[in-house]
Each structure stands twice: as structure tokens, then as C-alpha cells.
């Protein structure tokens, strides 16, 4: 029964995308991302200006990190999309104090069974990155924007076992409560501007059973090259569609 509801939820998600063609999730270059807690060799402390749908004007965000690293993964029998998406997460040290808001978001885990979320302040800025191995790295997938991760308050656990092909291999993970809603944001960094390409494409970040994910790798992002030491797999990002802000 549960999987049936989820199927119809995903179907509804597709339908919402088709009906809302200007913000179609068909553009989304990634369905699922694993989120790994990392320690960078060089801690980046940098100010950028950002603006999301919850900022009335652009505002300087003081960033520190990367604190987490994301990599596109396969899940729910969906293969990872190519080119693979990578993101570096930076803590926003001076978050704007926002009132709690009720929003409706349709995601691939909860489907149509529950769409409501209550969000608060943005705690992270998530920037596309590239994994450095050998040779020129894969391009950043088209349609992958910069996101702000808003804390979800009182999110109910979905209590679901999810098939996932993560960097730790194939297996099932227990998915718990939604922790963050990642909404696209414009960013100004030096003389570069990063626009929002798909304003309603977003991600819901779910807690999973924390697993050790020790590895060392190099990434390149808007702040340069950095060596990251992975510690543990902590969250999973799930593709979603922003439907409406009920606080307005």
C-alpha cells in the first residue's frame, strides 16, 4: 500500500513538472545525492552575496567549509545521471533570521502522501563542484544551481528503507526525518554571477543511518582546489518540486 502511494506520488511529481513547464524537473540533472561529512585540507572562509526566494534583496553570506560533500547516486531503481553531479556544502556563519514558513514540496521519497514542510533559517550554501581524478574533470551538469539549505522544523520521519547505490556500495539505508530543504539561490562572487535556472527545482535532505565513509579526494569549486577527507555518510538529498509557500 505504501509503495503504491509512493508510485502515485512520483507520478504526481511528473505531472506537476509537465503542467508547470517553465520550471520542469525534466531539467534536473540529478535525482539523488549522498551527503558526506568532510574535513577540508584548507578551510575556506569567504564572503559571497546571495539571494533566494526568501531574501528580499541580495545579502552577504559569510561562508566556511566545505563541511559536507555531495555526490550523485542511484536510488529507488534509478541509475545515477551522467555527468555525475558533485556539490560542496559551506556553513553560512551569518544566517538571516527568518520566520518559520509552511511550504508545500513534492519529493520522490514522500511522494504525494505528505507535502507540507516547515522551514526556518538557511544554514548551508551548496555550490556545484567537480571531482578531480585524472584527466579533465566532468563538466558541472546543466541545470545544477547553487542552493541554500533551509532547516526543516518538526519534520516527521518517513521510516523507509531505500535501495541506494552509494559510494559505499549497494544496499538499503533507513531514511528518517527530513532535515533540510535546498532551494536555488542566485550568487555573486567577485565578477561572476550564478543565476537560478530552475526556481522550483529543489531537494529535500533526509537523515539516514550514519555510516563511516573514510576516503580522501580532491574537488574543485568556485573557491579553488581542495583536498577533502570524508568521515561519514550522513544524509541523502532527494529531488523535489517546490509547489507553494503557504505563509504568504
Amino acid at each position, binding site marked *: 500500500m505504501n509503495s503504491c502511494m509512493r508510485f502515485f506520488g512520483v507520478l504526481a511529481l511528473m505531472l506537476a513538472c509537465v503542467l508547470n513547464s517553465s520550471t520542469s524537473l525534466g531539467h534536473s540533472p540529478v535525482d539523488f545525492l549522498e551527503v558526506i561529512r568532510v574535513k577540508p585540507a*584548507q578551510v575556506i572562509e*569567504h*564572503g*559571497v*552575496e546571495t539571494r533566494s526566494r526568501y531574501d528580499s534583496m541580495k545579502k*552577504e553570506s*559569510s561562508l566556511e567549509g566545505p563541511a559536507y560533500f555531495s555526490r550523485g547516486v542511484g536510488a529507488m531503481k534509478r541509475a545515477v545521471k551522467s555527468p555525475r553531479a558533485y556539490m560542496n556544502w559551506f556553513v553560512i556563519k551569518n544566517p538571516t533570521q527568518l520566520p518559520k514558513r509552511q511550504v508545500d514540496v513534492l519529493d520522490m521519497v514522500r511522494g504525494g502522501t505528505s507535502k507540507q514542510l516547515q522551514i526556518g533559517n538557511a544554514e548551508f550554501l551548496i555550490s556545484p563542484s*567537480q571531482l*578531480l*581524478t*585524472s*584527466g*579533465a*574533470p566532468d563538466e558541472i551538469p546543466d541545470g545544477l544551481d547553487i542552493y541554500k539549505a533551509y532547516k526543516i522544523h518538526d519534520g516527521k520521519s518517513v521510516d523507509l528503507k531505500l535501495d541506494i547505490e552509494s559510494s559505499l556500495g549497494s544496499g538499503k539505508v533507513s531514511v528518517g526525518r527530513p532535515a533540510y530543504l535546498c532551494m536555488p539561490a542566485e550568487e*555573486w562572487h*567577485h*565578477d561572476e554571477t550564478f543565476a537560478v535556472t530552475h526556481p522550483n527545482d529543489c531537494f529535500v535532505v533526509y537523515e539516514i543511518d550514519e555510516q563511516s565513509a573514510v576516503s580522501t*579526494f*580532491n574537488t*574543485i569549486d*568556485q*573557491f*579553488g*582546489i581542495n*583536498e577533502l577527507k570524508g568521515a561519514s555518510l550522513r544524509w541523502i538529498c532527494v529531488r523535489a518540486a517546490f509547489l507553494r509557500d503557504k505563509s504568504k
Partner: protein
Amino acid sequence: MKKAFLALAAGIMVLAAGTQSATAGCGTCDKTIVENAVASKDFATLVAAVKAAGLVETLSGDGPFTVFAPTEAAFAKLPKGTVADLVKPENKDKLVAILTYHVVPGKVMAKDVVKLDGKKAKTAQGGSVGVKVKDGTVSINKAKVVKADIACKNGVIHVIDTVLLPKSKK
């Protein structure tokens, strides 16, 4: 007329505020390559060499330039007495050749450097440096890039762990 003047003044103030804000929190991007190098203890030998070569004015100009900046440890790898010899007035041409071999015209950020894997980039000296991305490491000739994208007003600095030496002309 007075209203138009006030509007213009307000517009300029908004633009000025925007410009200041856009670079706020960077720490290096409002300074030139030379000013940033001088501010770092890790480039003391490089700065001394740039001064001896008479390149301070050039590298303080509009650019933009991409500088592969060797650290103190990089200079320490050179045979003993090499730097002392190079900064002698009679060796100025050789010093200029070595230093300009570390400069690529234009602002080439790390994300663009890695696209050059297996290719060469022409330097201000006239010779070319090879770019290699292997096992997560970016190398310029045999020098490893240890820090990238130090944004400057007139370009960008990438820090390297080995001094680049151009092939001597036969």
C-alpha cells in the same frame, strides 16, 4: 535639475555600495598580485626576486595575469646559491625569463586550468608550460598546485611547490 542631480548622486552611491559589497569578505581581491604576494610570508623570496627583476610595476598593472607562485619551500628545493646568483644585476635577464615563465596572460581560474589537461599554456616568457591532472592533483610541468584561485584585482595566483624553469635557448 536639483532632483536629477540627487537621483544621479543616489545612483552612484548605490553602485558604489554594490561594488564594495561584491568583493567584501574576500580579503585578496581588492589588492594586486604583488600586494597579495607581499602580504604573505610564504612568498618572501618570490617578492624579492620580482623586485630584483624590476617586475613590480608590470605585475601591479591592469593585467589580468595568472601567476603560478612558488612558495618558500619551492625555492628551497633549488641548488644552494641559485637564488642569490639570480638576483645579481648581471643575471637580471635570466631572472626575468624565469619569473615571466610563471606568468600566463589572462585570468585563468583553476576550473579553466584543469580543462587544459594534457595541453600547454603559453607564458609571458614565450615558452609553454604543460598542464596535467592526475590522481586528483594538478601539475604545471613538474610543480604541484597546492592552492588555487587566490583572486586578485589584476588576476589570480595559483600556488605551486616547485620553481618552474624554462628550457634554455640553444
